[in-house]
């Protein structure tokens, strides 16, 4: 059986710097993986290469066995949700319109059905009562939850999260993490770049540790957190854990 998302030998270079040096990864249906690693390691680049926001120099991305190419880009992206670090909600649209614009303008769903769907997804992230608010009227945590609802409304096969809580104050991180945990337990397939230990420990099926443009090792959180194979992984996770403890991490 083919994996839902399969990434084979991705390479990406910016000028002189090779950011991805051959990254391969597979995500099964309903699985959630968290990518961790020092900054500048290519984690965000990996996500952006997967949906070709930054097209990779070499390597392939397969969704349900179908390869992403320049020709089927829009059709494939419709099935790959993306949640940004700085939310990127459409500033001129109310929360409801942010969530229903995808189904309405991309998938051709009629207005009534798209509205119902959007309200369902807003409810799922706990923001049905903010449907008429503009992004500027929402807190960072609320904006990120709306952006998750926006991704969900496209009914994607997988959602990529690019440091979804990094731009948030610790007290707002919790509400986003709990929505993500709920999604994971609902069986959504998720690939998450984050140092958020609350999510990694309790909701991730696997942790992927990256360093220097490579995947160093990956495995279930229990094993990786307690008995990593590589010294590099161990020291990094130690630093993260210490930092998380100290700042109390805001984990829910």
């Amino acid at each position, binding site marked *: 059986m083919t994996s839902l998302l399969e990434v084979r030998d991705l390479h990406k270079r910016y000028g002189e710097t090779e950011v991805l040096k051959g990254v391969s990864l597979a995500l099964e249906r309903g699985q959630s993986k968290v990518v961790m690693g020092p900054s500048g390691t290519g984690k965000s680049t990996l996500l952006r290469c997967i949906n070709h926001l930054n097209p990779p120099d070499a390597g392939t991305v397969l969704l349900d066995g179908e390869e992403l190419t320049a020709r089927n880009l829009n059709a494939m992206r419709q099935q790959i949700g993306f949640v940004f670090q700085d939310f990127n909600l459409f*500033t001129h649209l109310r929360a409801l319109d942010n969530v229903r614009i995808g189904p309405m303008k991309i998938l051709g769903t009629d207005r009534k059905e798209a509205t119902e769907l959007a309200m369902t997804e807003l409810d799922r992230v706990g923001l049905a009562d903010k449907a008429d608010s503009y992004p500027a009227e929402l807190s960072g945590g609320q904006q990120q939850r709306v952006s998750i609802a926006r991704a969900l409304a496209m009914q994607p096969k997988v959602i990529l999260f690019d440091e979804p809580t990094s731009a948030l104050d610790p007290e707002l991180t919790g509400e986003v993490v709990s929505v993500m945990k709920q999604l994971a337990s609902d069986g959504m397939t998720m690939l998450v770049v984050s140092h958020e230990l609350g999510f990694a420990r309790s909701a991730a099926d696997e942790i992927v540790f990256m360093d220097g443009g490579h995947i160093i090792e990956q495995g279930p959180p229990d094993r990786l957190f307690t008995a990593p194979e590589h010294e590099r992984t161990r020291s990094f996770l130690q630093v993260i854990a210490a930092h998380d403890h100290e700042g109390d991490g805001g984990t829910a």
Partner: protein
Amino acid sequence: MDDGAIWSVIVSQMPYLLTGLWIGIKLLAALLAVGLVLGLVIALMEVYGHWSLKVLGILFERVFRGIPAIVLLLLFYYGVGGYVELSSFAAAVLALGLRSTAYQSQIFRGAIQAVPQGQLVAARAMGMSMPRAIGEIVLPQALRHATGPWTNEFSSELKATSLAYVIGVVELTRQAKYIISNTQGNILLIFAVVGLLYFIVNWAGNRVLYRLEDRLAVPGFERRDAA
């Protein structure tokens, strides 16, 4: 001349002035429309187009911003008009419209570039095509940024319509000149009334555009002076 005679001149000549004003307003509407459509096209070319289109856009902008309006009017009326049948009104629409295109393309380019890159990226990441993402996400935001500077352009161009005088468009300023010839004198009075008419149209137009700006304002896009 006593006061009564002055007023009777104004009253009797008012229909001519209003006819001239109406021509001026039609000229304004036409040249702004030309500038709006072509200005947007050039702005989009400059922001999203191939480098050759950018060069073309910038070249156009430089030429039409670098030549005085009166010279453009004469060039189009006597130059282009020498090859194709062109009424003085049409020549004025072309000359002033293309000049306005250059200015409006700058307004729109700046407004498009003021929309954060992440907005387009988010739309594209959802699988929106480029034209749709520009139409649904970038332009609605850019046009909100553009209404303020565009109001300025409206005022400039209203006043520029009086320059069409030089190629014989019978707009407000030329009507005034006719009236002055026919009534021997009254120069100061007639031009004062003409000035007032321009002022009133400008004031009313600005009111309408400010109201539009208010109506389009959403949280995050408030009018700068409203904050």
